[in-house]
């Protein structure tokens, strides 16, 4: 007989591993069968608890995923019956799915995660909820971990997630991959969530205890697998990898933020950079341009020994066709200045002053342009605003050095 304690520990480890690796796939499979987000999650949670007991006693089943799916479906049926819901259709569906799963538990579970990510990132949900739901359902973060990402209290995040799932059910948001006419917009909504997760990770660093950059790369990789031959998906993963490859070099030993051209290239992750570049090359070869490919191409141009600023400025100009936002206009202006036209760049900045008055990088860029075009007094005032608004010590250090250089 196996001693109880070691087998219990082994079971806990096994359940944790399966739930971490396959939560997204199992949740998606359950939603596809039950048509109820909350029920799917609750049933899976119960199945995982049940696995602790059963696997501890009888060892790991042949297919842990298949086992969890089957048990979760039974738990869902119990819940539907207990609730005494008049919902005959939901119960019938669940019973049917259970019978199917009972019949055949050796087959791999079909991957419904593409439908799940499109549902989580549906534009009818608030953007923050889209991010939270994606991290919870696809990446398998706990509610506490998702809350930490947003610096929210756990109950607040729990309520947000519940509200989002309730809206999906009540408003009839379909658990489906959108049709061709909606595909570009809806895919953009998904990729934007992935990108926002990445940028949050990039800005926060590891301080929340979750590597959001890695989660974003995981999601982008998942999309490359599940929606192959999509130029924008490849553009998105290229953007993430090319940016991530330089992450270690972006802060100088003195703690200042460095532009790519000033970074120590030996700190770049060459393999990741090559992988990102490969995705970008494949995307561009499809001749189906889009905002993520443009951003990836810009990131890639920044990796040159001397960035090709005229080309970068031109790409930002094209990005404005897709995203006519003040931030893109700001980046465009900066590239125009670097391409040798600081006066023109200042003109581009002028109409953005009101919209971006609280946006620190605007003041940093404006200060730099004023300094370069021989307006030191105005530049000093702008640097003061930029330094006051900088949240990272490294950024303050960088700007202070620039201000000091003005004399």
């Amino acid at each position, binding site marked *: 007989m196996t001693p109880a304690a070691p087998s219990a520990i082994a079971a806990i480890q096994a359940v944790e591993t399966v739930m971490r690796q396959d939560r997204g796939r199992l949740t998606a499979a359950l939603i596809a069968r039950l048509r109820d987000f909350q029920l799917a999650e609750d049933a899976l949670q119960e199945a995982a608890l049940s696995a602790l007991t059963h696997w501890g006693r009888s060892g790991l089943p042949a297919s842990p995923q298949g086992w969890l799916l089957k048990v979760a479906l039974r738990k869902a049926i119990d819940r539907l019956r207990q609730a005494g*819901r*008049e*919902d*005959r*259709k*939901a119960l019938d569906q669940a019973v049917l799915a259970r019978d199917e799963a009972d019949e055949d538990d050796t087959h791999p579970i079909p991957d419904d995660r593409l439908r799940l990510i499109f549902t989580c990132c*549906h534009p*009818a949900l608030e953007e923050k909820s889209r991010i939270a739901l994606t991290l919870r359902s696809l990446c398998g973060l706990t509610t506490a971990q998702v809350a930490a990402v947003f610096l929210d209290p756990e109950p607040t995040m729990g309520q947000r997630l519940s509200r989002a799932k309730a809206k999906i059910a*009540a*408003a*009839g*948001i*379909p658990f*489906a991959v*959108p049709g061709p006419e*909606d595909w570009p917009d809806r895919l953009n909504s998904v990729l934007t969530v992935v990108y926002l997760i990445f940028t949050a990770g990039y800005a926060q660093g590891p301080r929340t205890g979750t590597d959001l950059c890695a989660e974003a790369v995981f999601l982008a990789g998942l999309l490359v697998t599940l929606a192959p031959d999509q130029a924008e998906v490849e553009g998105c993963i290229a953007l993430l990898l090319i940016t991530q490859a330089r992450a270690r070099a972006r802060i100088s030993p003195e703690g200042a933020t460095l532009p790519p051209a000033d970074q120590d290239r030996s700190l770049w992750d060459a393999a990741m950079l090559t992988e990102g570049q490969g995705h970008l090359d494949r995307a561009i070869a499809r001749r189906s341009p889009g905002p993520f490919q443009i951003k990836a191409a810009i990131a890639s141009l920044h990796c040159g020994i001397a960035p090709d600023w005229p080309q970068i400025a031109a790409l930002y100009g094209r990005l404005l066709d897709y995203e006519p936002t003040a931030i893109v206009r700001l980046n465009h202006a900066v590239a125009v200045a670097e391409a040798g036209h600081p006066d023109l760049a200042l003109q581009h900045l002028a109409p953005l002053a009101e919209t971006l008055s609280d946006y620190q990088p605007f003041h940093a860029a404006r200060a730099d342009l004023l300094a370069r075009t021989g307006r030191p007094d105005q530049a000093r005032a702008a640097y003061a605003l930029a330094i006051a608004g900088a949240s990272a010590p490294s950024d303050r250090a960088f700007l202070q050095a620039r201000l000091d250089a003005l004399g």
Partner: protein
Amino acid sequence: MNYMILIYGEPAKEPAYGTPEFAEMMKGYFTLNERMKADGVLRGGEALQNVETATSLRVRQGKVETMDGPFAETREHLGGYYIVDVPDLDAALKYAALVPAALYGTIEVRPLMNYNPSD
């Protein structure tokens, strides 16, 4: 699922009667009606008279208070609605996007309360 498509507009922003834009708008509603009928999804729909014709009412401390116009100080007013029966929100949003008022107002899409979930 049944959805109500609520049409909110700001009278000042709507095309004026007699202009080509007005004709375009009417044509838009006509096309949309025809399409919803052809697709077999239209369950109902009405246009409301101007907001100036509205009377609001509430009962406070047992007393009926009536008021000229809508209570809320909103600039966009409910101008009409459709009810459509479609499979999901995406389908409802597709029709909502075709409502001409979407160009100058706001369209709200809400599922009707379903008291009989076995339907």
